[in-house]
């Protein structure tokens, strides 16, 4: 267990070694939430959506966390593939490498979510803080899974980044409160998290079924990410 915690901490340190990357990880979601807080309601209205006021601002915080976490998940796997395979071969084993990577990703996801949450608190106020934070965290963890999954299939940084952006923008534009555009909106990964976030932004609780759904989606995303890390670290037979 301590070996896993140690490797997770090392993976985290590896990611945050560049001070400027850490600064960007904090500044960017904060700036996005602050800048978009006043315009997202108007944007939703232009798309025929119903979300407005604090709910729209809260949705912006979820988006900021999701987009950044998607990039994070993608680069976690695409830039560490070779090193992870060597670590697994050197005795750490693919499973422990995967758990360490998941640990580091979740910690970074929490960091992004905390920043987005605090920026939202400063810019718009939060009627239901606990639900809001959990919903933002779910956005973040779901996109860590999506980014990691993309990274396990797409090796090029440009192609991978564009694929993550492609998925994110479809998800965001078709989500509840925005265009809510028919069939595709029903199967988008953050649909239920957006429902919870919109309710929390408006100071309301969410039905138990929504919480069960977001819990399952988050667990599924993290399980996908863990599998992708494990497959990536697994030594190949000659």
């Amino acid at each position, binding site marked *: 267990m301590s070996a896993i915690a140690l490797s997770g901490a090392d993976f985290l340190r590896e990611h945050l070694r560049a001070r400027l990357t850490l600064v*960007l990880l904090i500044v960017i979601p904060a700036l996005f939430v602050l800048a978009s807080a006043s*315009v997202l309601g108007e944007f939703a209205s232009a798309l025929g959506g119903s979300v407005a006021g604090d709910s729209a601002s809260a949705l912006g915080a979820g988006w900021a966390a999701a*987009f950044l976490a998607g990039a994070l998940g993608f680069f976690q796997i695409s830039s560490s593939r070779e090193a992870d395979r060597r670590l697994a071969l050197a005795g750490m084993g693919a499973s422990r490498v995967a758990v360490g990577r998941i640990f580091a990703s979740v910690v970074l996801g929490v960091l992004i979510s905390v920043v987005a949450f605090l920026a939202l608190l400063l810019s718009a106020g939060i009627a239901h803080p606990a639900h809001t934070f959990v919903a933002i965290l779910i956005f973040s963890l779901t996109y860590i899974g999506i980014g990691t999954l993309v990274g396990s299939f797409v090796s*090029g940084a440009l192609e991978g980044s564009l694929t993550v952006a492609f998925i994110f923008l479809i998800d965001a*534009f078709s989500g509840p409160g925005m265009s809510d555009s028919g069939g595709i909106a029903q199967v988008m990964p953050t649909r239920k998290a957006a429902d919870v976030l919109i309710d929390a932004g408006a100071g309301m609780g969410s039905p138990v079924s929504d919480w069960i759904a977001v819990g399952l989606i988050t667990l599924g995303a993290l399980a996908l990410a863990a599998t992708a890390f494990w497959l990536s670290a697994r030594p190949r037979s000659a």
Partner: protein
Amino acid sequence: MNGRAAIATRMGFREQLRRPLLLVLLVAVPFLFISWSFAITEPNPRLITLPGGEQILTTMREIHGAIMVPITVGFLAGLIGLFVVQSALETDRRLVLAGYSPGEAIAPRLAVMVSATLIVLAVSFAVTAIDYIPESWGPFVVGNLLAGLIYGLIGAIAGALVGRLGGAYLMFFLPMLDIGVAQNPMFFDGDPQGWATLLPGYGPTRVLIDGAFSQGFEATGPLLVALLWLAALSVAVVVLLRRSLR
């Protein structure tokens, strides 16, 4: 361009052509975003201020159709500039060690970046023209081209300064915040003021908005601002890359 630079340019293009997914995404992303944005936006009336001060009544749908072009082009060009230049730094260092001048190594990367931006622009204009025809194509094309080139250069600078990951974080959000929020006539009163005029997207966006909604041309000031940004960023890219190739 001399023989060595021409060979490096040819190799640079060949490298990109070996990435079919990239070509698909460079076409699919603008196609989907622009056509979808137009389709899902309501034709709500909107009063906007054009460069020169004239106010016109248009619709949110028309504005969204017009503004999605520079958002998409800026976003894609930024990522292209970031990854094309950043991924080539190691190779280019070896080229310089092997006798290339820094200029001969940098020029092919910039040629690839500009060409990819032009592809994205061409696709974006073709998609836009299905649903929306700007009042004046000239300024609309120039404004979008400037947005693409400026963000391509910003991406190249981000890659050289903060690396792949930091650069990706930056280029995911900067064009969205600048062109998508601060310069976007769908919000505020349509005429960016204060800090928004200091951002790189100000000049290009005002030029293309003038082209989108007016037959005359009143955006000489914003055009000069955009050209200044382009010149300053070009110098910055060349200086930074020359330094990193030594």
